C-alpha cells in the first residue's frame, strides 16, 4: 500500500512540538519517496523529465504532503528533503561509478548542471566530500548549499527554512560556492596553498 496520506503532515506537526522521534521517522519516509521518484526517472529516459533534483523534491512534496500546511512545517520538510536528496544523488553517483567500472554503461541524456549524470558522478561525490569537510568548519554554510543545490530552494526560501536573513544566506552562499568551486576544480599536484587540505 502506498503511504497513508497525511502521515508526513502529522509527523511534521509533531516535529514542530519538539518531538525528536517524529523527526527520526520523517527522513526514511522522504527518502523512500525520493528514491522511488529518482529510480523511476532514471529508468524512464524521458526527454522532458531529466532527473532534476529540484523537481524531484517538489514532486515528493506534492506526493507526500499534498495539501496546504503551515510554512514552518513546509520549511522543515524541505530542510529534511535537501539532506535526503543529497544522499540519494550521491548514492546514484556511487552506483554509477561502480557500474562504469563493471563495464555497464547506460547513458542518460542530460541538460543542465543538476541532473543526474554518470559523467558527473565523480563530481557529485567530490562535492559531497567537500561539503562534508565544509560542514565541520561551518555547518550553516554546508546546510545552505544543501538547501539551495539539492532541494533547489531560492535564497528567500533558504532564509526562511534556516530562520536567518537573506543577507546572511547570500554572504554564506557566496563564500561556500567560491570555496567549493576552487576545491572541485583544483588540479591534482597543482594545488599549492589549498584551504582545508588535511
Amino acid at each position: 500500500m502506498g503511504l497513508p496520506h497525511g502521515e508526513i503532515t502529522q509527523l511534521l506537526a509533531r516535529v514542530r512540538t519538539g518531538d525528536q522521534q517524529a523527526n527520526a521517522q520523517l527522513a526514511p519516509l522522504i527518502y523512500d519517496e525520493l528514491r522511488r521518484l529518482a529510480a523511476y526517472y532514471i529508468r524512464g529516459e524521458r526527454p522532458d523529465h531529466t532527473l532534476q533534483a529540484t523537481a524531484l523534491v517538489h514532486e515528493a512534496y506534492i506526493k507526500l504532503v499534498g495539501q496546504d500546511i503551515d510554512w514552518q512545517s513546509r520549511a522543515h520538510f524541505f530542510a529534511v528533503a535537501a539532506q535526503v536528496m543529497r544522499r540519494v544523488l550521491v548514492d546514484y553517483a556511487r552506483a554509477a561509478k561502480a557500474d562504469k567500472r563493471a563495464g555497464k554503461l547506460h547513458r542518460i541524456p542530460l541538460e543542465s548542471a543538476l541532473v543526474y549524470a554518470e559523467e558527473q558522478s565523480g563530481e557529485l561525490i567530490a562535492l559531497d566530500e567537500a561539503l562534508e569537510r565544509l560542514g565541520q568548519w561551518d555547518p550553516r554554510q554546508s546546510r545552505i548549499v544543501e538547501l539551495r543545490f539539492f532541494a533547489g530552494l531560492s535564497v528567500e526560501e533558504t532564509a526562511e527554512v534556516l530562520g536567518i536573513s537573506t543577507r546572511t544566506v547570500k554572504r554564506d552562499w557566496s563564500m561556500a560556492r567560491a570555496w567549493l568551486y576552487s576545491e572541485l576544480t583544483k588540479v591534482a599536484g597543482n594545488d599549492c596553498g589549498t584551504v582545508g587540505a588535511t
Partner: protein
Amino acid sequence: MTAERWAQLKDRFEAVLERAPAERSGFIERVCSGDDELRQELLRLLAGHEGAGSFLEGRDHSNDAPVFQVNEVVGRRFTVLRFVGRGGMGEVFEAADRDLGGHVAIKAVRPSLASDERFLRRLVQEIQLARKVTHPNVCRVFDLERHTGPSGEIVFLTMEFLDGETLSDRLRRNGPMNVSQALPLLRQLTAALDAAHAAGVIHRDFKSANVVLTGGASGETRAVVTDFGLARPVDTNPGDSITGTGHLIGTLAYMAPEQLEGNEATPASDIYALGVVLHEMLTGRRPAESPLPASQRDAIDPRWMQAIRRCLERDPSARFLSAGEVLHEVEKPVRLRPYRAIRWAALATLVLLAILTAWFFAGRLRSATASMTPGSSLLLTDVVNSTGDADLNALNELMRDQLSQSAHFNIWNRRNLPRVLERMGRHQGDEADAKVIREIALREGVPIAVFWTVTHPGDGYAINVRLEKPGMDSGRPEQHWDFTSAANTKSALFDSVRDSSRWIRLKVGEAAPEMASHDRAPQDITTSSWEALVAYMAAEKEKAADHPAEAIRMLDYALRLDPNFALAHMRLADIYMSMRRQEQGFQHWRTAIDESNRAHLSRKESLRIRGLYALDTEDLVAAETWFAAMSREYPFDYLAAFYLGAAQRMQGKLEAAIGTFQHAASLDPKQYYSYVELAKSYLTLKNLPEANIELGRIRALGEQTTADQFEGVARFLGSDAGLASAIFGRLLKSADPIAKSRGYLLLASLAAETGRSADAIAWLEVGLEYDRSRGDIPFQADKLINLAYLHLAAGARGKVRTEALDAVRLDSSPERLLKAGTLLARAGFLADASSMGRMTRQFPGVHKAEVASLRIDGEILAARHLFPQALDRLNRAAKMDQVSGYQEYLANAYAITGDGERAASYYQRIFDTPAVPWLNSAAEFPGIWTASLLKYATLERSLGHKDLADKLFVIYDDRTVKRESVLLAPSVPEPRL
C-alpha cells in the same frame, strides 16, 4: 583548517567582497601583510568566486528571458505574438503565420535537448506520427523548423494553436464535473483515441494535462488531445525503436500496470489512462491519490463508475477493446455488470512493485551500521546444523522465541515465502540459498537477514551468527557483521542462543534498557529440557502435516518431561480449539496462563495468550485491556493491533475498531484479515461503499472466495438478493472445501432471509451431505443447528430435537450448547434443554459459558411460564454479554410475557442492524433478521402504530418476494449449478 580559522577567513572574505571587483586583490594584499597563508587562501577564494559562474545554480530557467522576442520573425515566416509558457521540452509561443495566415503554436526546443541527436531523431518521429492522425480532436502538428538568431540555432516545432486551457487546469479551477458536463468531452476524447489507434498510434502519455479545451465553432467546448510526443507506432520492431523496450515512459499516475512493469504499451494502456482521466473529471482527483468520501462516490452515476473500473482493470485484456466502448458503456440504459470494488489496493501494490524493481537495479542507501528503523522486519534463516545431532535443529525454536521478545523489530513472517518466491518466478521447493534470501530481503524491504550455524568443534559447540545487509548485488551482502558464541556443553547452548540474540538485538539498534525489559532466558520462555523441546518441534511438524492426534501425543510427552512448559500447553490448547474440543482447549489455555504467571513464558507470549483467552471466551473487556497493553509494549506487532480491533468490533465499538484495523493494516498491509475485519465493520455500519473498498483490497491479495462471501452479504444488504445468490453460488464451485461448505450455509441463510425456508432447508441438507462426505464435524454441527431452527419455525418439533442433539454430540462448545438449549426449550424439550445447561457448567471460568448457562435457564423458565424468573436470568445474561449481537432472546421473552413496548424496542435494534447475522453466523440463526422483522411489524400493529407497521410490512414483503434470479435450492441432494 579549524572552525576558528574558517570564521576568520569568512570575516575577511566578506570584507573583500564588499570592495569593488577591481579593488579586491589589492585589498587582500593590504590586509594580509605578514600573513601569507591567509593571503593565499583569500586569493584562492576570490578566484573561486570569480570563476564559479553559474556553478551550483545553473538549473533554474524560470526567470530566463524567452528565446524569442515578441514581434521577432522566426524561420522567416512566423511573427511571434506572445510567450505562452514553458514546458518540459522548451518554450511555447503563439505566432502568426505570414505565408498562410492564421495563428500557430511554436514550441522552441531547449538548446540542451536540441543538441542531442537522439532526441532530435525522436522528435522527427513524433511529427511523422502525429501527422498520421488527422482528427478534429487531435492537435495537428506541422513542421520542424530551424531558426538562426543572435544566440545560435534554435530548433522549433510548429503546431495548431489552441486557444484555451488544459483539462487539468479546468478541473483545478472549477472542480469536478457532473456527468452531463463530462459526456461531451468523453465523446471527443474517445473519438481522438480511437482515431489514433486506428492509425497505429498509441499515445502512451494520455493525461488531463495533455487535453486542451477550446471554444468550438458553435459555442460548445472542443477537446483536443495534444503531445503525441512519447507515442510510437504499434508495429515497430522493438530493436529499432528509439526509446527502446522496457523503458517507463508516461506519467506515473496515469500509467497502466503493464507500462509500470516496463512492458510494451498497447491501445489498452491508453484506455487505462482514459479511466484515470475520467475519474479525475468526475471526482477532481486521480484514483490512487486518496480514498473518495463515500458521499461523493455515491453521487456518481454507477454506469460511469463501472466504466472507470473496467478501464482500470489490471489485466489489459479485461479492459474495453476500444475507447468507443467506454462511451457506449456510460450511455447504456441499465447497469448489466455486477458492482465490483475497485482494486485500488492492487494498483498501489503494482506501483510499489515497479518501484521496488527499479530500486533494485538502481542501488540503495549505504550506511555503516546494521541499525534498523523501529518496526522493520528481520529475516531469520534456519540454522545450518553441521553437528550431526538432529536435536540441535530445535535451536531454531529457541532463537525465534528469543528474538521475538523484541519490541524493536518483527521477525519476517515465513508464511509470505511462497508468495515472494512465486513473484520471483521460483518454485516453492527451490532451495533458498543465501543469494535467494538476500533477494527476498531486498524485495520485501527487510533490512537485515540473519544467517547462522551451529558447529561441534572438538568437545564443545559454537553458534556463529552473521548479520547481513542485502545490497544491489544478491551475490554478496552489502555489509555484514559476525558474532560467535562458544558453549562447552549441549545445555550451555541455551546461553549461547541468548548471547547471540542479545548481540543481534543491540546490533540492529535496540536500546539496551529496552531490551533488558523484554529478555527472558530461553529456558524460561520455553523449557530447559532438550528432549521436551525436540518433542515440541516434532509436534509442530505433525500439526503442519495435519496430524493433530499425533501432535497432541508429542505435546503430552513434552509436558511429561517438563510440566512447566507453557508453550506446549498453548500449542495443545490451539490444537484442541481447532478440533472444537473446547473443554480441553480452555483447560490447557488456563494452565499456560498459570505457568506464564510463574515466568515460564515471554512477556509478549504471556500478553498474547491472556488476550486470546479472553477473546475466545468472549470476555471482551478483558481482551481489549490485554491487547491494548500488548499494542503499547509492542507497537509494531501486527497481531496485537489486529486482536485489539477484534475485541473492539465484537463489542460494537465500530469507530474505534476501524481505526485500530487501519493501524494493523499499516503494520502489515499484506495480511488480508485486517481488510476482512474492516469490511465487517463497515457492513455493520451499513456503509457499503467503504465495505466495497475493503473487499477490493481482499481481492487484490488474491483472496477471492473470502471476498465473495462478504460481497454477497453486501449485495443482500443493498437489496439485491439475486446478485447475492449468484455470488454465494460461486463458492460452491470453489476448490476450497471450507469455502464450498460455507457457500451452502450462506445460500441457506439467504433463502431464509428472503422467506424461502423450504429452499433454506434444502440447501442445508445438501451442504450437510457434503460435509459428511468430507468428515467435517464442526461444519456439520453448524448446519444441523440451523436446520433445527428452521424446523422449529416450520413446526417440525421431532426434527428439532434430533438435529439439536446431533449437533451437540458433534460439537459441545458453549455457543453450540446455547443454541441447542434455546431451541430445545422453545420446542418444549425442557429436560434436554436442562442437560444443555448443565453441560455449559463444565466450562468453569469461561465467560461465554456463564452467559450461555443463564440464557438457557431463562429459556427454560420462560417455557414454564415463570416469566419474572425468566426475565431475571435473561437480563442478567444480557448484562454480562459483552458481544454486540442480537438480543433476540430478550425481544422474544418480552413478547411472550406481553410487554409489547419493550419487545418492540429490542426488535427495532435488530431491524437496524441487518448485517449482524451474516458476520457472526455462529451466534445467530438463519433468517433471524427477516423473522424478527415480521414479529416487529406484527407487534407494532398490535400496539396501534399502524403507519410504522405498514411500512415494516412493506419492507418485509419486499424482502421476501420470490425472485427468479435467486439461485434455487436443488431438490435432489446434488447441487445443480
